[in-house]
């Protein structure tokens, strides 16, 4: 059975290692914070200027001066720090953030990503996404395998304007975990009960299918 959004987040959480600084994008990536094992130390960076981001505040404790990049009220944990946007993107460009998890509209088999603009529609902007994808050594895309029209989002080539070139390393969808390899999308894991044929049918880009494709453990 295909995963739901929480399932995708749960699977991605398994990629997070002890001592990682992680930047979570809006949407499914935000849910990843709910699945971090208790026994590892992880700090969340929000690019508007906090490291050591905590959970949402309890009602009545909201602070207008303490928000995340999604403009939501948040809290800070012991050991947190605040800083300006140049320092924040210095951390990102300088590869000090260990892992970036973000959503996408399209990913190409070369690791290109498109997630900020649909021609003809209102464009809200790329925010920090272009800085994040251009700099992170370790980028995981969290997205659905196909769009609302049922078209594959894993393509030979992106059709939408790019956010970054040859930068995505791994993709987790409701159907599969895939890695970008020089030859295309390497199918690493299937969602529980999902067949390789289903994944193949939903993937427009070149799919590399190993002999054995284990099921995800979620």
């Amino acid at each position: 059975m295909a995963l739901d959004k929480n399932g995708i987040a749960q699977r991605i959480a398994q990629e997070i290692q002890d001592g990682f600084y992680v930047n979570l994008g809006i949407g499914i990536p935000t849910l990843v914070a709910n699945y971090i094992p208790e026994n590892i130390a992880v700090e969340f960076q929000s690019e508007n200027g906090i490291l050591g981001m905590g959970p949402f505040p309890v009602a009545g404790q909201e602070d207008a001066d303490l928000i995340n990049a999604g403009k939501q009220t948040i809290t800070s944990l012991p050991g947190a720090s605040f800083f300006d946007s140049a320092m924040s993107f210095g951390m990102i460009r300088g590869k000090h953030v260990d892992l970036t998890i973000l959503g996408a509209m399209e990913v190409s088999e070369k690791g290109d990503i498109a997630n900020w603009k649909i021609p003809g529609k209102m464009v809200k902007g790329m925010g920090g996404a272009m800085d994040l994808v251009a700099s992170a050594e370790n980028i995981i895309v969290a997205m659905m395998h196909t769009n609302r029209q049922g078209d594959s989002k894993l393509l030979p080539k992106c059709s939408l304007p790019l956010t970054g070139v040859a930068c995505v390393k791994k993709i987790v969808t409701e159907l599969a975990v895939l890695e970008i390899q020089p030859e295309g999308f390497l199918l690493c894991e299937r969602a529980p009960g999902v067949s390789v044929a289903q994944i193949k049918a939903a993937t427009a880009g070149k799919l590399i299918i190993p002999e054995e494709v284990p099921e995800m453990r979620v």
Partner: protein
Amino acid sequence: MIDKTVATVTAAVADVSDGMTLMFGGFGLCGIPENAIQELVRLNPKNLCCISNNAGVDDFGLGLLLQQKQVKKMISSYVGENAEFERQMLSGELEVELTPQGTLAEKCRAAQAGIPAFFTPAGYGTEVAEGKETRIFNGKPHVMETAFQADFAFVKAWKGDVAGNLIFKGTARNFNPLMCGAAKITVVEVEELLPAGALDPNQIHIPGILVDRIFQGVNFEKRIEQRTVQN
């Protein structure tokens, strides 16, 4: 000690005129210079180019300038949290230059620090890099970006002293420190204006040399855009 205080927001903003380029601190509605924006609405200069990470909401922040059609061009990383912005943009009344957030921050910092241009990997291979010089460093392609040039920077700080030294609070810091000294004239409003010597010199985020005018702000609303609490 060089005194940077002006008595009122009116005195601080009076010489803004049509066609100028203005920088505004803030991320979303967090840390925006509310007093200066209100005064710019009253003063009503037109054809402004505004550099700000976001463009406010319909009835607050830079949305107020948009409502009065004071803005000709926005330079931002993320916009469109308001309907009037969308209308003006789609109708072609409003020009929008979208810039990656880290590049936006660094272009401010470069202006502050006298660095005319720098290279960043952000935007390489995208339409943001179109028409810009690119170059490979350490095997990786980068885009050359240049420092902003602006007439005024409007900044909101938490505490400040009469010498113009500033301290910011929480994530209301964001772009505010980077815009100090990044324009010809830097105007700062503070929640608490203190005498010189009241701030620990080790804790000052922005030294007064980067500030031209400082005033005690009033009636800060500090609106929350996405109030989110635990279940």
